[in-house]
């Protein structure tokens, strides 16, 4: 009888502990944790760090300021085409680049896309609802000098349970008036995954 009771107790304990095995802990976003081998936050961070460092130290800023009487360049962010085999959201690293523009104040940034439409809609709303003194006027937006575009490509080489995944992320800065590419940033990441 004692044996049965102790066995039942042990079984209950195991069941209870197995139910409590789900655990969540906060980790440092800079910590490298690779689980599946797919694109993750570490890859995004590596791309962001590399792009931010090179775009702010390249000659295009000084060249622009020299040709425009010291005026800082104005940049708008365009499309980033994900042509890889995985779902990769480019906004995670493009936002870091935008953040560096604003925080260093070397480059001026203008809003584009749906957010710009929202701004114009708000401006339109102000035309009929805001007081005349606080109403913002149309036609006074800052025009961008450069557009930031990009692409993400990948190559997968796999055999049975082994796999090498190569990601190439490119960001390009183009003069909107002349179509001249003034800067290209590139980050290559290769991973060897063994399942």
């Amino acid at each position, binding site marked *: 009888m004692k044996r049965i009771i102790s066995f039942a107790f042990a079984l209950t304990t195991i069941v209870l502990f197995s139910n409590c095995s789900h655990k969540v802990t906060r980790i440092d976003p800079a910590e490298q944790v690779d689980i599946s081998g797919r694109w993750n936050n570490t890859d995004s961070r590596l791309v962001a760090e590399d792009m931010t460092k090179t775009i702010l130290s390249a000659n295009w800023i000084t060249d622009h300021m020299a040709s425009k009487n010291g005026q800082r360049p104005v940049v*708008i*962010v*365009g*499309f*980033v*085409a*994900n*042509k*890889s*085999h*995985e*779902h*990769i*959201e*480019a*906004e995670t690293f*493009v936002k870091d680049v935008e953040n560096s523009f604003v925080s260093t104040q070397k480059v001026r940034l203008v*809003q*584009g*896309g*749906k*957010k*710009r*439409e929202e701004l114009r809609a708000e401006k339109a709303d102000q035309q009929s609802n805001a007081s005349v003194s606080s109403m913002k006027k149309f036609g006074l937006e800052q025009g961008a000098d450069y557009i930031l575009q990009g692409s993400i490509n*990948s190559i*997968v080489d*796999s*055999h*049975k*349970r082994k*796999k090498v995944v190569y990601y190439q992320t490119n960001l390009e800065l183009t003069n909107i008036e002349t179509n001249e590419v003034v800067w290209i940033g590139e980050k290559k990441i290769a991973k060897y995954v063994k*399942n």
Partner: protein
Amino acid sequence: MKKVLPSFFATVIIMLGCLSSFSQTGLAPDQNPNYEASLAKYMNMADSLNRWHSSTQHDMYKAIDWLADRKEARADRREFRRQLRLERARWYNSGFYYNDYRGNHNRYRYHPFRGHYYSPFNRFDYWWR
């Protein structure tokens, strides 16, 4: 001096003419005079193209991956078997199988008066007709 003056005036007149033509058409120096064709084309497309600025355009491909393909094939087989089970259950409930309490598992029922089997699904073969 008399020889130089006419050529000087001619040059000045030509330059003034050029300046006046630029000011009339609004062209920047070296600007293509046919730019309006492109302007008209892209003015109509600008809104639809610029809406997706600051976003990611997903144009992904399916990589050749042995392990992923195996997982996918397994999921497909499971889904097929599940659909097959659902389909069978649907047929059983509709009376297609096991429709006879006497254990007659074929789809035909025995007609007690006519002395032959008939299909309950054939509306032209009901026993009361």
